[in-house]
């Protein structure tokens, strides 16, 4: 044996350590036992049980799949879904398992076109570079037929998976599209920020409307599934996964909360149909005793189903180059000169200041001279009192009042009714508009007396949003309560349990003498109910008493861009006046306040009023039929 083969050269006087020589057999014994134990254990683990361990561990890799949360629904006040979810069948493939045979089998099974196959190959190439064992979506949102075809053939298609994922779906199409909004993929800058908040980069985010503003309630929380795969990326059974993955394997997704709106889908549809023939318009219908929005229309609009996720660049450019601006909310975001619907401000200011009286008569000769400038009325009205001036919308009467009270008094009352500041609805921009004052003009360096004249009839630099006008008429209807408009009634969990309920919010109580208000209201009554009224001449509602005021806001015909002609849209004349109608029904104890606005529609009485009439008749006609007047 090696150990005994040599004795040291210096061992002429015996070994240096004789004890060691004596105990070598013990050393050998310990060494052999140790080796046998270790080698025996290796034999047991690697040879006897090796196959089992190999099966359990070879190429085990933990993979994560994110489980999308079901986004909260957006429902109208009666529970009609405006935004919902539907299951989309997505086809996943693990790049590492993708073989020509499987490709051919899948192509045969689904009858895939060459284009589709090329797209699949492209996606797999990208996925392979990232992680060949991570399944990726190759066919998105397939029909039920295709999904079940694949599902039945899964055994022959290793590495192919079908997942049912919730996709956003707007069952009412473009109904209330501006209000509901849409979703889209996050940009790369957003992706960085949002992934910290638990988003997955493939998720869509609310981009517009309620989808954007109420994102935090709607989105819920995504879940994660962790699983083990073998060397080929084939998923392993749960029992094996349990031995390989530390901690929880599945944390389920938490569904988002539902929004219940104050909107009445039926009324909304009615309003959208009523403006159907117009190219660009807005309608706002509000409950006068709560400030709750019942319908908000902005036209032109879009189908959020198309907008959400899969808009092609071409479609996008087309939509964005439309001069009517389909992506700008005309009810909330845009501001326009209000025209004569604004005259209540001038009337109330003059009446409270004692600068006007119901029986004071003015003679309208069709024109008005002020410091060298001639202002023209819409007609030669002859002699009329205040009620007549409201009824016939005589400008000269109000210009005289303006001369007495001045621009800043008009501005005071206008601000009291909420003009000039955002309504705090907190949606789609919610514009503040503009109420000019003397100081404002002086800052610009050119105040003239004529500015008050313009403002008195809602012209010149006065700009308001359709929503602001509606909220102001709500305050007129209810006697002076200016509400913050409300569109979300409550938030509830996906199971219907209430989360938050919102109460009507009052912006301010306007102190206005009842007599002054009464005079204005009687004027409004005449507009829609007496011959000569600007609305009455274009139609009369018989089923319910209505009162209102028309407006025809002239446009400063300054710009007529060259390309306007190129992109001209039939029926859209950018030089024509804006048509307005604001009013309510029933006249006493109103159920809703309605404001109709038609962009470049022309005369308020001829264009806006018939739309309001159609909506009112449609709504109250249906109520009557149900025997519920």
């Amino acid at each position: 044996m090696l150990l005994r083969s040599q004795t040291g050269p210096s061992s002429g006087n015996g070994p240096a350590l004789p004890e060691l020589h004596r105990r070598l057999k013990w050393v050998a014994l310990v060494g052999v036992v140790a080796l046998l134990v270790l080698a025996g254990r290796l034999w047991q683990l690697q040879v006897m049980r090796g196959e089992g361990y190999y099966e359990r561990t070879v190429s085990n890799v933990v993979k994560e799949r994110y489980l999308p949360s079901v986004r909260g629904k957006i429902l109208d006040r009666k529970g009609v879904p405006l935004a919902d979810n539907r299951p989309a069948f997505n086809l996943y493939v693990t790049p590492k398992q993708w073989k020509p045979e499987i490709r051919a089998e899948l192509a045969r099974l689904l009858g895939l076109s060459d284009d589709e196959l090329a797209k699949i190959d492209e996606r797999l190439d990208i996925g392979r570079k990232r992680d060949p064992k991570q399944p990726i979506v190759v066919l998105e949102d397939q029909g039920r037929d295709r999904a079940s075809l694949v599902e039945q053939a899964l055994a022959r298609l290793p590495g192919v998976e079908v997942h049912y994922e919730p996709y956003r779906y707007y069952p009412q199409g473009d109904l209330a599209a501006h209000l509901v909004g849409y979703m889209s993929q996050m940009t790369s800058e957003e992706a960085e920020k949002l992934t910290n908040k638990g988003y997955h980069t493939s998720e869509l985010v609310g981009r517009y409307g309620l989808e954007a503003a109420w994102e935090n309630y709607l989105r819920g929380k995504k879940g994660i599934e962790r699983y083990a795969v073998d060397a080929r990326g084939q998923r392993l059974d749960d029992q094996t996964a349990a031995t390989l993955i530390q901690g929880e394997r599945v944390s389920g997704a938490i569904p988002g909360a539902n929004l219940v709106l104050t909107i009445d889908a039926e009324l909304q549809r009615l309003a959208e149909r009523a403006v159907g023939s117009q190219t660009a318009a807005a309608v706002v219908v509000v409950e006068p005793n709560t400030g709750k929005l019942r319908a908000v229309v902005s036209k032109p609009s879009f189908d959020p189903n198309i907008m959400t996720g899969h808009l092609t660049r071409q479609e996008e450019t087309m939509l964005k180059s439309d001069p009517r601006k389909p992506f700008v909310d005309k009810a909330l975001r845009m501001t326009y000169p209000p025209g004569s619907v604004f005259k209540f401000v001038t009337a109330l200011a003059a009446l409270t200041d004692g600068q006007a009286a119901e029986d004071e008569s003015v003679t309208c000769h069709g024109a008005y001279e002020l410091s060298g400038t001639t202002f023209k009325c819409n007609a030669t009205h002859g002699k009329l009192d205040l009620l007549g001036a409201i009824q016939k919308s005589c400008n000269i009467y109000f210009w005289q009042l303006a001369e007495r009270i001045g621009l800043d008094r008009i501005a005071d009352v206008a601000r009291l009714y909420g003009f000039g500041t955002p309504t705090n609805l907190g949606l789609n921009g919610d514009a503040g508009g503009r109420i000019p004052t003397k100081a404002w003009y002086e800052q610009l360096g050119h105040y003239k007396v004529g500015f008050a004249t313009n403002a008195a009839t809602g012209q010149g630099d006065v700009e308001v949003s359709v929503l602001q006008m509606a909220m102001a008429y709500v305050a007129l209807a209810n006697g002076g309560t200016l509400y913050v408009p409300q569109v979300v009634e409550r938030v509830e969990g996906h199971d219907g349990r209430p989360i938050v309920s919102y109460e009507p919010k009052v912006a301010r109580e306007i102190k206005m003498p009842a007599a002054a208000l009464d005079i204005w209201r009687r004027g409004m009554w005449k507009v829609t109910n007496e011959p000569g009224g600007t609305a009455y001449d274009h139609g009369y509602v018989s089923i319910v008493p209505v009162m209102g005021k028309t407006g025809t806001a002239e446009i400063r015909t300054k710009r007529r861009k060259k390309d306007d002609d190129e992109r001209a849209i039939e029926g859209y004349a950018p030089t024509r006046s804006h048509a307005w109608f604001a009013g309510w029904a029933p006249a006493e104890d109103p159920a809703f306040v309605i404001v109709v606005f038609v962009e470049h529609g022309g005369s308020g009485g001829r264009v806006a009023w018939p739309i309001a009439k159609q909506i009112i008749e449609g709504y109250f006609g249906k109520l009557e039929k149900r025997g519920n007047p």
Partner: protein
Amino acid sequence: MKGTGLALPRSRIGVSRWRRFRAAVDWPLILTILALAAIGLLNLYSATRGTRHHAKFDTQVQWMVVGLIAFVISTVVDYRAVVRLAWIGLGAAIFMLVVVRLLGDGAHGKGSYRWLNVFGMGIQPSELAKLMVILALARMFQDGELSRYSIEQLVPRLGALVVPIALIAVQPDLGTAVLLGLIVLSVGFLAMPSVWPVVHVTLAGLLAIPILWETMHDYQKNRILAFIDPSSDPTGNGWHTRQSIFAVGSGKIWGKGYGEGTQNQFDFLPEHWTDFPYSVWAEEWGFLGSVFLLAIFGFLLIWILNVALSARDRAGAVICIGVAAMTFWHVLINVAMVLGLAPVVGVTLPFISYGGSSLVIFFCAMGLVANVSLRKYGY
């Protein structure tokens, strides 16, 4: 080599110093060590390649160079001179153990004090202590000295051997403390004229286990409990052992092939480059490779004992026994731990584990063996 015969045969006079030196050098020992070091690097490369730990390979190569230099130095400087300074060396090691207790970086291992920061390098004084204890043993057993000691002389010397063990145990680094104790007992068993004192100490140590258990930290107790029943805590302490067993077993007879070990590649085995390199090796090289590596260690041990048998004095023989014991226990405990036969303790696999302190100390230890081997010819 054998042909060199006596230290300086007449025929050899006139042969150059260098050729005589070259002929006397223990080449089989050196080749065995180099083979192990190469296997260690190969294995580390597979374990860390493509992970965020890949820089560890470069670090280890640098330590290899340091180790080789240490090997040469500890071969060339006459061990008899070194043994004369053994008590001072042990004193220095004890001093460092005290310093590490007071100043060391407690953040490294679960609030234990094992590391000393010297010029930016993490040094483990407990590794140095192993070497110094072996040298101190050699000093004690030097020709006849042991029998000359009176009780009054013997007790402080034995005490000096127990102090570092105790200091390491309270770091706490139970694995190293037990290992050091085993080295002392092994040397005692092989070098004492009578084995009975060693047997008595061993029995006393076994009886002290219940007391030790009471003084252990919770994490240490948990490790031992997890070893006894790995399924009791499959995601915690049992995790390492289970995953290690899976890795070893999945290697089967031929192994998965170099670089194909999925268990280690996907971080199923935390810290596999320090405490579980054998697991990585076994997964990739299978039963044959695993036994082959054990065989290399076996050959190394036999060779070191061979040097011990032919040493020219007791001190040299005791050094070899000590180094053999240290190597043996390191390999046995580490491999047993990897195979699920011992609790998870921080005991490295010589030359294979990642880590500078362990590597350099083993190179030094083997250098001392080569030193003894070189001087058996009276060189």
